[in-house]
């Protein structure tokens, strides 16, 4: 059956990030267990992270920053967080727009529940300012 997708903050489709002003994206994946499967990929650079890349995998919370490191910065990059439910039934994905001053804006926050063959891709375009 289809994934149940419940947005708290809906995917805006496009996110402007003023990297020159210290803005960057902070990703959080909360997983229900037992073994999360997901990938964070970029249209420009391909696969950036897999769940198994994180120390302590499998675990309940995965977090990483994107665009904080200058090598991440790509104009008009499509970012995709693709989660799979083969061995993990529930996820919550959150993307925050942070800056060096400590300000945070929630870009998207979505709960997912699915069955083993389900996938839930979530993607948006990043426009660097």
């Amino acid at each position, binding site marked *: *059956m*289809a*994934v*149940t*997708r419940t947005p708290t903050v*809906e*995917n*805006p*489709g*496009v996110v*402007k990030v003023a990297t020159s002003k210290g803005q960057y994206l902070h990703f959080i994946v909360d*997983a*229900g*267990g*037992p*073994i*999360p*499967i*997901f*990938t*964070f*990929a*970029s*249209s420009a650079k*391909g*696969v950036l992270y*897999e*769940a*198994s890349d994180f120390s302590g995998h*499998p*675990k*309940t919370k995965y977090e990483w920053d994107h665009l904080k490191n200058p090598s991440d910065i790509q*104009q*008009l990059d*499509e*970012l*995709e967080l*693709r989660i*799979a*439910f*083969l*061995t*993990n*039934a*529930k996820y919550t994905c959150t993307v925050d727009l942070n800056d060096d001053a400590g300000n945070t804006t929630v870009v998207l926050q979505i709960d*997912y*529940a*699915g*069955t*083993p*063959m*389900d*996938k*839930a*891709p*979530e*993607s*948006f*375009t990043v*426009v660097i300012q």
Partner: protein
Amino acid sequence: MLAVILLYPVSAWTQSEPGVNGWIDKQIDGLLDKQLVGQNGQGSDKQRESPAADSRSTSLVDQSSATDFFSVAANVIPVTPGLSQFVSSTGSSGNTSGAAGSTTATASLYALLAGLNKVNPTDPKFYAEHVFSRRFSFTIGTAASTLATDNSDTPATVYGAKVLLINARELYTKANLARIKQAQEANANAAKASAALKLQVKKLIFAALNPASVDANGEPSDLDSFAAFIKDHLASDANFQATLSSLSTETNKRIQTLIENSLAAFSQERAVFRQKYDEISKAQQLSISYAADIRDAKGNNYHRAELIFDYGLSPRINWTVNASADYTDRKTSSDSKGGRFATSFQGNLTQPDSAWGKNPITLTFSGEGRWQTGQKPQYTFESKLTIPLVPGVELPLAYRYANRIEQINQTDSEARMGLSVDISRLAHAFK
């Protein structure tokens, strides 16, 4: 939590994001569906009902694994007279009143450890660190007694324990971790292809509708305009539908070509997930169990030591075999000893609505042969329909037929109804 992988279907779904991204996902699924030759199903291997040794159980055959967490089963009523109206081996006819019910609760050692540690049993770290504890489960409960059948009208205490000796469906075996790694790799390849495809489609639509705002290579020349276009025309379903209907046939064809040219990674992802799901869910399980109905000083005690084997014939059909040694300890007449062989096929008729939602409707056909000292062989057949009422609550309806008067008084058949509650699933539904 292994139930999550074992109880759910293999039909693939990709949840839609809003707007153009979701539309692309649906196009991909649609094209992949066309490629699908057959649809598999799912396994059903978790016993949530009372042990078969309980003569009031709606389960004629035991399954190798119990719930991962905690479940309760009540065998409410034999809705027609029959099997529970036992006739003792001495041949005296039984008094049937009050022979109906039994209630048992089953918990895994894992669930008990999670409770003692005040940890959510689905916590990945805890789950990974306590693989061994999921091999053990315990059952306790009561079963009604009658003077005629049990030499006592005091309810029996039901005890049971089960140990999974071989559990090839456990996620944390070396082989299954390797399978999960392959699934992760397929997911990564699809994510990479999906990100690239979605950006290409967005740029193509933008260029088609805003030819003055792209450069010679078709790239957006004004990034703010492109960002605004995505936000206003592509991000929501309603806006995207209007945008889609305004595209020319040529642009639509180019989008379809882009999608079709990217299908390989998505096709591979679906195939790998299906293959790994099948490999894990159809794997073998072997367990040993002991179950007993213990009564007061005068009542009969029933003991069963059992070997249980499960094998997934397909993701929708699970085959189970039981071989057991049975012992009836009678206080006022001679004991019975013997063996029992039983087998069942459990098939899922429907697919569940979500991971923690209702289980599928299952249809089970079972057969049992019992050979006891001082008795002629007894053969019993059962068909059972298990209907999920709400997530975590199921209603098993069984029709049982047996050949021997030793098991059946007056009629050769009986219908039974029970109720099983998976506490974890039920609690999850109310979260």
